[in-house]
């Protein structure tokens, strides 16, 4: 973090080589993570059996690591350079393993943080971005109060992510970590209803609006109003807070996104045998993650692709089904979402309950008559350079300004916001001080290197059998055992953790070039070890006659330094 006057944070845990890594291109996994989690570092620590250190690396940049270990869409895996060899590393599942191994450690480590700043901050919303901002600001020594309209903290994580994907006790571990820092919590408190925004702004030195997208969009079609047609978020909230939603025997979910998958799979788990989905998109076009779709199909959920909703057919007020028309195309020539229909091709999908899951928006009604301006389309006016709204001292983060996104993206947004608020409260300029979000990353594996890498399939992530998991809200995915985790962690190629040359010591002798199995070094006036080629095998470092080569991610001298104490500790009379 960029801090000038105010160096009061206790230094977060840094893995070996953290400083050098900042001066070099990131590994693709790390660059892809919105919070820039150092995946290479923690996977390597897992491979060494150093689980609590792996936990430290993970949580140093992510206050909802347990949550992410269950539900993250893991852009790190999509970016993994092993993809072109065989399959990506199971990063998310390894994260889960490291966190599960560190349960007692993390609980012991919870500490109240001294409030050193004499300034208070109010945060509206306790979702990923609100929690992340609260966490960082508490770490900096501010008094933080979180306002949450629901009875439990976590925002969508608590109210809309179903427990079969994210068990409540997992979320609780993350929240307890944050709250233990000494954060004041006001649940069942809705801004605009229980407190006015203006009063909040007077009470605190700065306010963060982190309310996410909590309103479901509905469809403007005949028959959509009335019993038998539900909206996604209220439905999921009912499930989360143990209010039984009224479902019939035949449930149809409209939508093809990830929330639609959650809704359909939740309905299955509420005892409905016949759950189907209808969406505009083809299987390839749908926005839901492929693994979510596959898991839904396993659970017996049928998906009708490329049909658009036309009307809800009712008979005597009771829902009979959804009239749909064929979709000709979803996107226009410019790739924009602009569906066109063939009205001659129509049919009825029978259902007694319809759940609409076609997107969400923010509930910004509390901003009416407040100094926080909204634009003509109802969006909050927000300056990305300062992260502030039109009202001085009122900041906005997460999906409210970024649009629908992932939990980890909301975390990153909250962290930026926290830094901006810190600068603001210290009377410093914000503009130009927020770190770049896009990081330079290591290029793709060259083909000649990829072919030298031994194929080793990813360890399968086990799930409960579909027929078993549909009967319960219990989490359906089974964590790695230690052997599986160690083997999977061993698949990492260590991108970004490889060899570097001290230019002051290199005399361009060519030894590294001759020894490298991957042709990574290029020697001109000095040797340069190309990070996209280097596999961090470490052969070159001990061979370098000038001791000019070291490894970014591990200390080649570490063993040497510790040997004396290890050997000394051995009882020489043991024989």
């Amino acid at each position, binding site marked *: 973090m960029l801090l000038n006057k105010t160096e009061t944070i206790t230094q977060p845990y840094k893995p070996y080589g953290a400083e050098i890594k900042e001066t070099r291109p990131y590994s693709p996994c790390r660059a892809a993570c919105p919070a820039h989690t150092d995946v290479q570092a923690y996977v390597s620590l897992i491979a060494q059996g150093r689980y609590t250190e792996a936990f430290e690396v993970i949580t140093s940049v992510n206050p909802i690591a347990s949550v992410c270990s269950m539900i993250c869409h893991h852009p790190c895996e999509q970016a993994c350079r092993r993809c072109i060899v065989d399959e990506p590393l199971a990063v998310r599942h390894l994260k889960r393993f490291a966190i599960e191994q560190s349960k007692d450690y993390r609980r012991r480590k919870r500490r109240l943080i001294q409030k050193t700043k004499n300034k208070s901050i109010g945060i509206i919303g306790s979702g990923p971005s609100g929690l992340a901002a609260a966490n960082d600001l508490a770490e900096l020594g501010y008094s933080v109060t979180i306002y949450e309209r629901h009875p439990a903290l976590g925002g969508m994580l608590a109210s809309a992510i179903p427990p079969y994907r994210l068990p409540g006790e997992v979320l609780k571990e993350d929240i307890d970590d944050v709250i233990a820092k000494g954060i004041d919590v006001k649940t069942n408190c809705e801004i605009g209803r229980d407190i006015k925004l203006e009063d909040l702004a007077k009470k605190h030195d700065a306010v963060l609006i982190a309310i996410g997208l909590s309103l479901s969009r509905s469809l403007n079609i005949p028959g959509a109003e009335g019993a038998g047609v539900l909206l996604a978020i209220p439905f999921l909230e009912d499930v989360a807070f143990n209010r039984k939603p009224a479902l019939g025997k035949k449930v149809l979910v409209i939508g093809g996104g990830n929330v639609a998958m959650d809704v359909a799979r939740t309905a299955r788990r509420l005892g409905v045998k016949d759950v189907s989905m209808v969406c505009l998109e083809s299987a390839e076009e749908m926005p839901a993650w492929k693994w979510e779709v596959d898991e839904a199909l396993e659970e017996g959920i049928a998906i009708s692709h490329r049909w658009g909703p036309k009307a809800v057919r009712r008979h005597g007020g009771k829902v009979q089904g959804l009239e749909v028309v064929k979709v000709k195309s979803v996107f226009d020539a410019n790739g924009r979402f602009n569906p066109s229909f063939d009205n001659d091709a129509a049919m009825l999908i029978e259902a007694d309950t319809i759940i609409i899951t076609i997107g969400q928006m923010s509930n910004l009604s509390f901003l009416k008559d407040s100094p926080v301006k909204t634009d003509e389309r109802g969006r909050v006016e927000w300056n990305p350079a300062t992260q502030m709204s039109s009202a001085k001292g009122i900041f906005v983060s997460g999906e409210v300004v970024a649009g629908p996104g992932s939990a980890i993206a909301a975390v990153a947004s909250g962290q930026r916001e926290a830094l901006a608020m810190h600068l603001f409260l210290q009377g410093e300029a914000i503009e130009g001080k927020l770190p770049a979000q896009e990081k330079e990353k290591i290029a793709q594996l060259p083909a000649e290197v990829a072919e030298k890498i031994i194929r080793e399939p990813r360890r399968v992530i086990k799930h409960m059998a579909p027929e078993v998991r549909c009967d319960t809200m219990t989490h359906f995915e089974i964590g790695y055992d230690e052997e599986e985790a160690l083997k999977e962690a061993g698949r990492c190629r260590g991108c970004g953790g490889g060899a570097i040359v001290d230019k002051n010591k290199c005399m361009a*002798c060519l030894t590294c070039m001759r020894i490298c199995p991957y042709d990574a070094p290029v020697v001109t006036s000095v040797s340069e070890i190309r990070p996209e080629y280097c596999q961090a095998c470490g052969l070159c470092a001990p061979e*370098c*006659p*000038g*001791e000019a080569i070291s490894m970014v991610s591990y200390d080649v001298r570490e063993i040497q330094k510790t040997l004396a104490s290890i050997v000394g500790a051995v009882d020489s009379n043991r024989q």
Partner: protein
Amino acid sequence: MIIGSQKSIDEIWNMVQDFKKVLVFGCNTCVAICHAGGEKEAETIAALLRMRAGQEGKKMEVNHLGVMRHCEPEYFDPVIDEVKKYDLVLSTACGVGVNFLSDRTGNVPVYPGLNTSFYGAVEAPGNFVELCAGCGNCILHLTGGICPIARCSKTLMNGPCGGTNKGKCEISSDVDCAWYLIVERMKKLGALEKLSEIQPPRNWSTSRDGGPRRVSVEHIREYEKQEEQKAGK
């Protein structure tokens, strides 16, 4: 570059055994490239000496250090005070480095850790061959780029001796006959007739026979002198 090879640990031990505080000082240019005396090898020798001292029941502090070159003062000046704290410096530079450093360490003796072998090239990784003898009067243009001074066992100037044997030298079947190589090379270059010109006896005063040699580059010296004068005023 200059090729050297490490002295045996017994020989080194005999040199250093009576000293209490020894610095094994590596040179990271020529002798590092031939894996004989860079910082890495200095470290290895230091470890072996510590173990040997333990075996012999002697109390000896042995450390190692490395700089880019021992033959230019600018490279070791930053550490020279540190170096002077030792009772003995075992330099793993070539003989040039040992001489040069020895003049600049005050009362601290500098001993050689290597045998300086020759000027050589890297024939293959780990294989170093002598190709030049530094005689001070180059005639490679007359011999197809193959030096009879360095590569003929007898330093013959006008063709092979009677000991040439199917391209090999009579001293060993592992040694090529330089004159055989020269003839083959000149044939290939279409310049064989050049070899019929008789080379007169050589003037060895440019080589070892003329005493220690010195090369002075006037324009660099001139500049340096002016700088020195300026600094003096």
